[in-house]
């Protein structure tokens, strides 16, 4: 088969078509008629997974600004897995909570399109457009319960700060364009490497603005204020989707730009990111301990996780780059499963997302309590779960590059974070509730999906070498 101009975008086309079909199917649907819209979404996502696997090792490029190198495909597979799991978990909840199914699945798919393109983009203009495609869809998903005051408020806050941040990102791109005369990552990399730019105020401003823009999207301190609100106000399954998919896509694009094009400037930006990573890990953990709402607590936990990911970028060595990919995979699986459990246990009327609502979960839903325990242990970084191996690699990358303090801060903050994860586990198993609520029925498909996800978390924790080798191999060809 000859390589055609469209090869690199085939996975994206699969998901886009599925999104359009879902929209059309919804608009032709008669009232009260049931349609398997989630199934349509799954077909598109699985098609994209197959396309990604077939494109592996081919290094296809399209239009001079989309690449399907192994790095992009690895992250795309993570994003597609997150999408598939979210659709599987949503099937039952969308119907139960009366969410508009057509819009829900279509927006989910369009957000995934944006994420995939953002990872594949090799031109800053396309990075921006993909980021907006993703963000606008996710803003609406956050507020999809439009009669709910908390949902719309969360969506508006997320929207306002998100739009504000993309203006910063775009201003950074404009300065890079002004200095180098191009928006292509390769072109920028060539110019930056050829000339000594260390003292150039314009490029330093560009780097600062890019850090602000991406910092907002990834949710690092001091640009994290939106994330606890958005995570709490959105439906739990959407929170699970955006806390993993958006973060994975933004982090992957961030790493691509900073570790390839701006790599020659590493002595300028590494100290800044060092500080940001350290504050993010500390603040995410310390404020997380004080939370009483489980969704807010996991929001702060995901802020701390963004800090650990930044450690991988600061380290910037081979181990660090592979560790970022492994960490994204481990974190995505864990967080999607965690928020799915919250979503399955809470309804629109009774969100059940307070820590107290989890007291005695073992007596009402023993299986979910067991799965939640493994998820929380993985978030805390206990062996033998994926979270432990991921943190281990990140910290050994930091030590390998001589960032001992960063590794120590990371280690200490993850020890502190264990406290708040274990507190939930203790509540689930050891405490009794006076008035035991009637247990909500949980769909079998969602339980099966959760079981598979948790099995994958344990697999990555016990036999990580295959995935780590894959991550290392996929990144070595790129930068």
């Amino acid at each position, binding site marked *: 088969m000859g390589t055609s101009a469209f090869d690199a975008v085939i996975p994206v086309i699969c998901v886009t078509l599925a999104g359009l079909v879902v929209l059309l199917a919804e608009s032709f649907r008669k009232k009260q008629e049931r349609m398997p819209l989630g199934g349509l979404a799954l077909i598109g996502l699985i098609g994209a997974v197959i396309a990604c696997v077939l494109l592996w090792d081919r290094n296809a490029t399209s239009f001079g600004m989309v690449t399907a190198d192994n790095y992009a495909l690895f992250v795309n597979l993570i994003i597609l897995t997150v999408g598939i799991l979210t659709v599987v978990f949503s099937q039952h909840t969308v119907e139960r909570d009366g969410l508009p199914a057509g819009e829900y699945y279509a927006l989910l798919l369009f957000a995934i399109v944006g994420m995939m393109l953002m990872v594949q983009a090799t031109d800053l*203009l396309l990075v*921006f*457009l993909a980021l*907006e495609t993703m963000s*606008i869809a996710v*803003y*609406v998903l956050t*507020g999809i319960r*439009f009669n709910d*005051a*908390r949902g*719309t*408020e*969360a*969506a*508006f*806050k997320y*929207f*306002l700060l998100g*739009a*504000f941040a*993309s*203006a910063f990102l*775009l*201003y950074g791109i*404009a*300065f890079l*364009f*002004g200095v180098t*005369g*191009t*928006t292509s990552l390769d072109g920028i990399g060539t110019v930056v490497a050829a000339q000594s730019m260390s003292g150039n105020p314009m490029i330093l401003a560009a780097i600062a603005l890019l850090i602000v823009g991406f910092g907002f999207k990834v949710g690092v301190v001091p640009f994290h*204020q939106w994330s*606890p*609100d958005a995570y*709490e*106000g959105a439906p739990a399954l959407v929170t699970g989707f955006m806390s993993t998919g958006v973060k994975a896509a933004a982090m992957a694009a961030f790493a691509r730009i900073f570790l390839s094009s701006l790599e020659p400037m590493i002595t300028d930006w590494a100290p800044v990111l060092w500080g940001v990573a350290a504050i993010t890990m500390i603040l995410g953990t310390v404020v997380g301990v004080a939370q009483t709402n489980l969704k807010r607590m996991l929001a702060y936990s995901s802020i701390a996780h963004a800090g650990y990911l930044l450690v991988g970028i600061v380290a910037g060595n081979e181990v660090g780059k592979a560790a970022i990919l492994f960490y994204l995979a481990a974190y995505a699986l864990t967080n999607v499963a965690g928020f799915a459990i919250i979503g399955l246990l809470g309804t629109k009327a009774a969100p059940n997302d307070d820590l107290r609502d989890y007291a005695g979960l073992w007596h009402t839903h023993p299986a979910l309590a067991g799965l939640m325990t493994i998820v929380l242990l993985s978030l805390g970084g206990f062996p033998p779960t994926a979270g432990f191996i991921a943190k281990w690699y990140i910290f050994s990358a930091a030590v390998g590059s001589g960032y001992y303090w960063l590794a120590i801060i990371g280690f200490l903050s993850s020890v502190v974070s264990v406290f708040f994860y274990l507190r939930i586990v203790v509540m689930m198993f050891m405490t009794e509730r006076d008035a035991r609520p009637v247990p909500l029925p949980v769909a079998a498909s969602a339980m099966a999906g959760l079981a598979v996800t948790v099995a994958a978390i344990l697999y990555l924790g016990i036999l990580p070498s295959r995935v780590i080798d894959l991550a290392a191999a996929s990144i070595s060809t790129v930068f």
Partner: protein
Amino acid sequence: MIPLSYYLVLSGALFAIGTAGVFLRRNIITLLLSVEIMLNAVNLTFVAFGRQQGVVDGQIITFFVMTVAAAEAAVGLGLVIALFRGRESLNPEAFTALKW
């Protein structure tokens, strides 16, 4: 010919005005307008750099940015309507269901 620095100073000032607006104004529609001012400041920067380098890229990018800004404004105004229905207010301080 007007030198590049004039454009950059103007767009920097516009960007700063937009940023200040997001933090200082007390009306959510004005907040949206402030974000638009920021995006247009960036557009001016792109066009100025494009002209200085003698390429059309800067102006092409501006079209993409305008499209994105329109899509963003549509979603933003939709959210404002949803918010206004619930509270009958446009003051951001009225929206405190979630801790800021």
